[in-house]
């Protein structure tokens, strides 16, 4: 039981990070109907910006951890959002009226551009940081000597994820901007006729998606203490899977999908052969899609006439 609890903690934290990245995929898909393949690399950029900010803050002698975290988070979100905005402006907007495959190809191209740019600018080595948030709690110790450990970083990751998810769900459901977004999602031409600035709304969607990816990047850096130029690829694929599993286009679905993938991977590794954990995760994805083609929380697409 203790062992299960420990693995549950591991899975939830991993799933939270996947979920944060998955939200970016889902939002962009919801509004423009394309998969932003560069999103994983935006996440990687977020991690690097966080690393650079962190090192600058340390070198000027700042040591108060909550202040450092806040500044790192804000700077990383701001700069990464700028990347998200530029990517949309350069690679997607000019192709929006083009045939369906064009923006997807330019998204894949953008993904290569970003990861190679980071490799050239930052070098190929893994960039480590010392543990920033240390300490934790021993929740329970069994007679056999197995201690269930919950570290402070894990708490920070999960709490940040929940808070951000709440904020963004509120943003989409209750604000004027959210209403614009939902309008564009339903019918861009009609939304434009009714006075919604479609270009601006789409730009903002990319900006928000990138900012969330940046948060995921910061959490990743805090939790694992490592970033490298290649990390966006695998994380991006996992998060994309999470978005599809949860029902692409649905915000809570992305989070749920992220948690599901994180938990499946961890629990499979916990009780079965670690070698087959990806096989397990993707098999479950296929099974879910066979029985629920729109994912766990996705709405069936209504044919517009």
């Amino acid at each position: 039981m203790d062992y299960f609890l420990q693995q549950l903690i591991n899975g939830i934290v991993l799933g939270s990070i996947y979920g944060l990245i998955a939200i970016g995929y889902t939002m962009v898909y919801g509004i423009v109907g394309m998969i932003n393949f560069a999103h994983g690399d935006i996440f990687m950029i977020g991690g690097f910006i966080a690393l650079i900010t962190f090192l600058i803050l340390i070198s000027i002698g700042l040591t108060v951890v909550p202040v450092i975290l806040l500044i790192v988070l804000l700077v990383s979100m701001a700069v990464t959002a700028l990347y998200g905005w530029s990517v949309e402006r350069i690679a997607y907007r000019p192709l929006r009226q083009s045939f369906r495959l064009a923006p997807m190809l330019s998204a894949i191209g953008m993904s290569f551009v970003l990861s190679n740019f980071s490799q050239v600018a930052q070098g190929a080595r893994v960039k480590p940081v010392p543990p920033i948030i240390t300490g934790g709690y021993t929740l329970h110790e069994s007679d056999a000597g197995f201690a269930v450990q919950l570290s402070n970083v894990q708490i920070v990751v999960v709490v940040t994820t929940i808070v951000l998810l709440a904020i963004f769900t509120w943003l989409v459901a209750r604000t004027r901007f959210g209403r614009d977004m939902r309008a564009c999602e339903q019918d861009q031409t009609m939304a434009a006729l009714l006075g919604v600035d479609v270009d601006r709304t789409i730009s903002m969607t990319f900006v928000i998606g990138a900012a969330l990816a940046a948060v995921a990047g910061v959490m990743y850096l805090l939790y694992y203490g490592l970033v490298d130029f290649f990390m966006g690829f695998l994380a991006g694929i996992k998060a994309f899977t999470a978005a599809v599993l949860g029902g692409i286009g649905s915000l809570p679905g992305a989070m749920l999908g992220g948690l599901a993938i994180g938990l499946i991977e961890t629990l499979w590794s916990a009780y079965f052969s670690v070698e087959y954990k990806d096989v397990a995760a993707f098999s479950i994805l296929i099974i879910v899609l066979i029985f629920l083609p729109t994912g766990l929380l996705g709405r069936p697409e209504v044919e517009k006439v």
Partner: protein
Amino acid sequence: MKPLKLIGLAFGASLALSTAALAQDITIAVAGPMTGSEAAFGRQLKNGAEQAIADFNAAGGVLGKKLALFVGDDACDPKQARSIAEKVASAGMPFVAGHFCSSSSIPASEAYADGNVLQITPASTNPLFTERKLWNVLRVCGRDDQQGIVAADYILKNFKGKNVAILNDKTTYGKGLADETKKALNKAGFQEKMFESYNKDEKDFNAIASRLKRDNIDLVYIGGYHQQAGAILRQMRAQGMKTVMMSGDSMNDKEFASITGPLAEGTLFTFGPDPRNKPTAKAIVEKFKAKGIDPEGYTLYTYAAMQLWLDAVKQAGTTDPQKVMKVIKAGTWDTVLGKLAFDEKGDIKAIDYVVYKWDDKGNYAEIQPGKGT
């Protein structure tokens, strides 16, 4: 007729020009992961090769010609390694020092063999490299089966009756190393408690760490590269575990300590006796230090590979790879690593792996076998 003649003339002239260029320099290659996640090792190879070329050119080159260096980047990817091998072969280079990753060296060696290029790897330790009876391969480092025996020996002496887990990253190198260590342990009647593998591209090893914690593992042996080993170590310590980590020769890079920080303390790995401490390497080490380079890990191995080839070319009086190879296998050679002699397969005859231990300040040192953990 006339244009054809002209073309023929131009062709002849360009041919003459290119042979003239060749006559000035002998270009040889160093190949390894200059980019990608193993780039730290690529740099060791490149540093060693560049220094060797500089030293030999300063001493007047070889066969009256100067040496030039071609640096090939395989990013530790078998496909790229193969294409570099084809490039080196088609450019007519007689010799390559490389590659680093066993999974690159092995497929590349076949292209080198077909293209008449002599290959000396400074770092690829997978037994298969020399087991395929290719005429053109040599290595100046040890083999994983020997490394496994030394690691197993240490484990048997210091962890008898304790719980040992073996993990690998599914690469040619990592899986090979883990298999050899397991084989050596099992032969001595020692059964490991867990044998698992992980994905090299991932950073989350918490599930594996918890599993090690559940099974009360005292020592975890990693068949894999230092970056994942570093991440696993961090995540084990974050879960409050005191499990000792042990790995192979890829943990000789300082990058390991930069990933783990003081947590590296007590981590063990096997590697050849530190070449930097050998009396034969003293002068070269000084040269590197003067340039601000620490000739760690495989730097001096690469230097020795270059040295070996150049001395053999001098003795053979030709760069013809087949002849040079015969000369190398027939002799005993003085290199920065000490005296080297090779068997028919291309492995060095005397091999001595030792166990090293990291401290909390980011340095490692040899430990006496059998002396505590």
